[in-house]
């Protein structure tokens, strides 16, 4: 058996698996800020570089192959230990609001450096003294590493994160490294002197972590959640992390990827979640027979839209099936999902719309997340709005949450003949719909709405008047108060993410 190639494979597998897990952890902690991925990549690669450098020094200084094997086995043990310790340390720092780019960089660089230390050693062990075949033998060890690195994300992304929590996934990768260390010790009959100490320490830590994980599999996520309070519900799957915080009287707050996503409230008198925004769509399009919702979240708006008069069909495209699971705990939302008119598709919205070019809608509601989050440009860009426009029937209206981004509003105003802002939502169409808002018909419509058979608004509710009299805002006034020329978002410039987006620290 080619043990150096196998060692190289194991290190590649563990290294890329850990990278996927660190991307998940750090991105969650940093609220899916676009630069988070680049920061992890930079820190991780820096660690790999330093580890490889140290490995090269070890190759230069080693007296024998046996010594290099000993180094490698000790490195596997140490990396296993760090796989448990570093994420816990990161979580502990986050839980006391200790935010430091340098410390975070050091943590992630340390995580990757130990396995990278083995990289040159494995190549050295697998290639030396083979005159004329060195290139091929080198390539075998190298390709084994890359094969492990290709398999790591597949196993971690598809299997571990799908069925285990982030904390449990770290635990599994720790166990994999421990198993590899044991295997090479036995297979090579190595006499690991200081490796024994590292091994014992790692196994003790593994036992402790296992006991802790059995008690609370989501402890790591809880420690880095931005609210500082414990989530009542945590749903982790390979698509993301959903946390739900119970709040009496306001409706539970739902967070996706550690940022506010919505609430479960369906009471307009409480209105902790801006119900007037989706509600306005019923007034702007009096015959909304075909509705498209991009983004389900907890399903609060779906429950409301299902009650709009004239709705015959609702297609919902949601990228994370975890929300379907979360909604089951809330009767109104669960009932909305079971409505025979509702068709929920778990897919990427852009991909799904391209696959269904013939679909036409009267109403499109996008439950878009914050304009500064990673990849949000794919939903706010000119290209995506044009794709939406192609799916709008005559007289259709589109709305989306611009979350305060003047550039997102500006982009809609460039794509559509008419685009106006109401609260923080942008409403767009190819006709002027503004006159439909503040009318007697709208008041009548709101008053007649029901939810689960009961009136949606209380009798003589002042909320109706408040909702219909809130003004539309035009792009000209927003441009004047912006303090800079507004920019049209495109797939290529991503201005809300990188140019005017949220900084990491």
């Amino acid at each position: 058996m080619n043990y150096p190639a196998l060692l190289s494979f194991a290190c590649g597998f563990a290294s890329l698996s850990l990278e996927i897990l660190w991307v998940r952890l750090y991105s969650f902690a940093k609220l899916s800020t676009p630069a988070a991925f680049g920061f992890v990549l930079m820190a991780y690669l820096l660690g790999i570089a330093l580890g490889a450098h140290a490995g090269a020094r070890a190759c230069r200084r080693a007296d024998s192959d046996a010594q290099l094997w000993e180094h490698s086995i000790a490195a596997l043990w140490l990396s296993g230990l760090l796989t448990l310790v570093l994420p816990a340390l990161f979580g502990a720092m986050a839980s006391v609001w200790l935010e430091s780019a340098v410390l975070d960089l050091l943590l992630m660089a340390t995580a990757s450096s130990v396995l990278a230390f083995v990289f040159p050693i494995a190549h050295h062990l697998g290639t030396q003294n083979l005159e004329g075949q060195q290139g091929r033998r080198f390539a075998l060890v190298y390709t084994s590493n890359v094969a492990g690195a290709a398999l790591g994300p597949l196993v971690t992304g598809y299997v571990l994160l799908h069925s285990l929590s982030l904390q449990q996934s770290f635990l599994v990768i720790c166990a994999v490294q421990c198993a590899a260390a044991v295997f090479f010790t036995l297979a090579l009959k190595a006499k690991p002197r200081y490796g024994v100490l590292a091994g014992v320490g790692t196994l003790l830590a593994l036992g402790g972590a296992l006991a802790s994980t059995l008690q609370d599999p989501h402890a790591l996520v809880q420690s880095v959640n931005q609210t500082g309070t414990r989530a009542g519900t945590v749903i982790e799957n390979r698509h993301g992390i959903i946390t739900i915080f119970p709040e009496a009287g306001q409706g539970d707050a739902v967070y996706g990827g550690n940022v506010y996503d919505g609430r479960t409230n369906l009471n307009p008198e409480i209105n902790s979640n801006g119900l007037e925004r989706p509600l306005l769509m019923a007034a702007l399009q009096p015959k909304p027979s075909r509705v498209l919702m991009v983004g389900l979240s907890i399903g609060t708006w779906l429950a409301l839209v299902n009650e709009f008069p004239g709705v015959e069909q609702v297609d919902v495209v949601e990228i994370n099936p975890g929300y379907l699971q979360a909604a089951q705990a809330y009767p109104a939302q669960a009932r909305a999902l079971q409505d025979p008119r509702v068709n929920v598709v778990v897919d990427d919205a852009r991909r799904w719309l391209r696959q269904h070019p013939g679909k036409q809608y009267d109403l499109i509601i996008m439950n878009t997340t914050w304009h500064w989050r990673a990849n949000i440009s794919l939903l706010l860009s000119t290209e995506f709005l044009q794709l939406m426009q192609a799916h709008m029937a005559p007289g259709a209206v589109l709305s989306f949450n611009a979350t305060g981004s003047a550039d997102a509003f500006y982009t809609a105003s460039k794509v559509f003949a008419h685009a106006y802002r109401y609260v923080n939502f942008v409403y767009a169409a190819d006709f002027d719909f503004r006159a439909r808002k503040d009318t007697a018909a709208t008041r009548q419509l709101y008053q007649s709405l029901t939810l689960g058979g009961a009136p949606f608004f209380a009798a003589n509710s002042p909320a109706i008047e408040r909702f219909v009299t809130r003004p539309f805002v035009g792009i000209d006034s927003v441009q004047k108060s912006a303090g800079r020329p507004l920019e049209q978002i495109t797939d290529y410039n991503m201005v809300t993410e990188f140019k005017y987006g949220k900084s990491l620290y």
Partner: protein
Amino acid sequence: MINTVLLLSFFISGCSALIYQVSWQRALYSLIGVDMDSITIIVSVFMLGIGLGGMLGGWLSDRFPLRRLQWYAGIELSIALYGSASLWLLRLLQAGLADSFLGDGAVGSAVASFGFLLLPTVLMGMTLPLLTMAFDERTANIGVSVGTLYFINTLGAATGAALVPFVLLPLWTLPQVVWVAVAGNVAVVLCAVLAAQLLPRTTAVTTTTGAPA
């Protein structure tokens, strides 16, 4: 001198590779979606390509031991050519995919990523074995050679990973960022050509100074 030039070239090569990776990943999201499946497919195809390239680079290194630097330069030039046409190719792919029997679904996404990423990643993967063997002619210790080169290459990659979100994308658009990577590849070609020019003289000097007195 020759080692310094080669190390510099490999730093830039790593930097360009990461600029491509982040840029292409981003461009592919608009084509194949941004869910976990797409991300996993892209990362895996990247690794597969680099692995295949590693095998091919190792074979070439043994087959043409005297022309390793020329191959290295040629490969970097090919990456530059591919990079300069990459976003245009992606648009073609998008149009072709919609009309093909594969469609825009998961299978189509996987095929699109595979088709788009395989060639450049194979080319990128070929560079490490070729350069390691060229470097090892002077260090005569594979562990030291690969460790040093990997250190420099990955340091360049870390720089590239940081440049894209923190410097390049706040200033420029995605196509302009890709051109930065292309410029990096061209710089690598120039370094490799310079190193190849220096090679005979350096070898001669080493032989002379290394001779017993």
